[in-house]
């Protein structure tokens, strides 16, 4: 089956606008209030509806891309870990980046967030070229990431972790640091925002505990809440479900969809297909460093290139000794 045939076969079966569980699990209706007053209204329903016209092919053009990567190549010696011709991430939707182990997902993720430098290629975020921008400045542009191995700052309390996320803090300059009256007011405001977010993520009871005493799932929640302190327009989640107790999964999913409903763009790397199917609006599939397929989640399971990548291209035919040897 070619890509085009496949696309026309399945497109009618899909709900084009909101995903099946849009805005469903968890209590996230007033998320936007807690997160910030800064976020400009991106209409996530319209953004998702716009995806209906996007072709189901690798490197497809999106109507309103927030993040664009062009010709991004990363080699480790002789191994090409990532070789992506073109990829766009639509603003205001949840995009999943999936692929078998070693496909280069996390490497691409690091390249998109400037935690790694590509051998060539250009990346644009929200209209800014970010090729030469150091990783720490990306956060100021409104892109914030989390990590596969959760980086809760163990020997700091939960509230300290949260307050760290505030951007543009006056007290973070060495000279003002010794003059508390110059930053006290801002600190109070940041603390209030942090407390509101902790409430939202149901972590208030841990407020003054060391982050190192938290469970794996709570750390994921803390990391996500801390990322929101940056008031981002795009949140990049590296395996948000890894090591999370199933009881927390639903609440975590609710929080991710809550981000989108609050007008943020979400890109996440994930192995858990249930999560991908449940909450993503668009899926990008990688294998061997390249993007091999794109489309809405329901289309991916049927895509031949994807099935081949996960199971091998001869998984459904008898072994033919002549071609194998």
């Amino acid at each position, binding site marked *: 089956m070619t890509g085009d045939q496949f696309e026309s076969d399945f497109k009618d079966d899909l709900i084009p606008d909101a995903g099946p569980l849009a805005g469903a699990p968890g209590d996230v209706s007033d998320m936007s209030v807690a997160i910030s007053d800064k976020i400009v209204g991106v209409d996530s329903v319209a953004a998702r509806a716009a995806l209906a016209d996007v072709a189901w092919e690798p490197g497809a053009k999106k109507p309103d891309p927030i993040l664009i990567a062009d010709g991004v190549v990363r080699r480790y010696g002789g191994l090409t870990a990532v070789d992506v011709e073109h990829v766009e991430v639509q603003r205001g939707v949840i995009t999943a980046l999936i692929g078998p182990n070693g496909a280069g997902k996390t490497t691409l993720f690091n390249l998109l967030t400037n935690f790694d430098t590509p051998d060539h290629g250009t990346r644009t975020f929200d209209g800014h070229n970010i090729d030469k921008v150091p*990783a720490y400045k990306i956060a100021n542009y409104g892109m*914030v990431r989390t990590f596969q191995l959760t980086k809760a700052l163990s020997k700091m309390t939960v509230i300290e972790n949260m307050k760290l996320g505030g951007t543009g803090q006056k007290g973070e300059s060495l000279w003002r640091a010794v003059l508390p009256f110059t930053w006290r007011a801002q600190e109070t405001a940041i603390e209030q925002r942090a407390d509101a977010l902790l409430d939202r993520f149901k972590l208030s009871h841990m407020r003054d505990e060391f982050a*190192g005493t938290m469970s794996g799932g709570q750390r994921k929640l803390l990391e996500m809440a801390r990322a929101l302190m940056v008031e981002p327009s795009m949140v990049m989640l590296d395996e948000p479900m890894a090591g999370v107790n199933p009881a927390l999964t639903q609440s975590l999913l609710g929080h991710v969809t809550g981000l989108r409903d609050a007008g943020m763009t979400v890109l996440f790397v994930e192995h858990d297909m249930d999560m991908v199917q449940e909450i993503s609006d668009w899926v990008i599939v990688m294998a061997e460093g390249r993007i091999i397929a794109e489309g809405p989640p329901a289309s991916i399971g049927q895509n031949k290139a994807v099935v081949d990548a996960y199971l091998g291209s001869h998984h459904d035919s008898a072994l033919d000794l002549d071609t194998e040897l």
Partner: protein
Amino acid sequence: MDWVSIIESLFRGLIGESFIFFALAAIGLNLHFGFTGLLNFGQAVFMAAGAYGLAMMVATIGPAANRNFGWDLSESTLFWLGIFVGVIVFPVIFALVMGIPTLRLRADYLAIVTIAVAEIFRIVVRSPTPGIKKWTNSSDGLTGFSGTFYDMSPFGTQDRYLFNLFTGNQMFLVMVGWVVLAIVATICWLLIRSPWGRVLKAIREDEDAARSLGKNAYAYKMQALIIGGIFGAIGGMIRAIGFSVAQPDNFITDVTFFVWVALILGGAGKVLAPIVGASLLYGLLNFSDTFLRQGVSNDLIPDSLMTGTQVGQVRFMIMGLGLALLAAFRPQGIFGNKEEMALDDR
């Protein structure tokens, strides 16, 4: 046994000159290691920077400038200039030399470079090459730079103060030292509880996390290295004034490790820890020194076991034993929190 002299010596250790030098250097190291996670094994070079900054300004550079440029800077002007050079200029230069190549890399590279810079500086200063000896006076070191300081002393040089512990000049040095120590500790305390200090702790815990939240980890590490170095330089400068000499062998690698011992004893990452650690370290060293000497001279310790000349070494053996016991039973130090220490990345 002369208990009075044993107790006097104990108190000199607890609150005296050595305590002040090492507490200052340990506060700096605490900012490096305890709060930012920087492995600095060259704190001695920051102390040397303070000592030589002052000594060279007053004893060699200043007079040379007066001669060559026809200036007429008095000794006291040079003294204050020297304080500026020793506390700000030299430590900043050393911190930049150490930090620029290594702070982008893993922590161990800084460790290697700091220990190397400290030894290189000491060996260069020690060099008998005329071109260098002209400025640093080789292993004999520089003298004649502390006059301005002691001229300000209100204490009589012939009298003894504070229960006979200190002579007038020592009393003046110790008093100035306490005030400086209090100021430095307050600055450190203010820094640590500010958002700036929070970023440092975040960098210690995980640099990438700090970066992902928009903090320029490199710049913060450099700032911490400079500020901690300045604190160390103040300690080294007071040490040089106390001895009235800046000598390269006062800043050997051992000095760095005494600073580390003071910090670990108190508990890295607590503001008061280096002060209490340095106090206990020198209290213990002085006490065991005088105690053993008294024991040997009163024949309580037989010569077959230890002679008077071996006391100096034996007290370090006792200190080593104490450290081993500390590591076994209280690894977090005196002020540390055991639960906090157990929270390593899971």
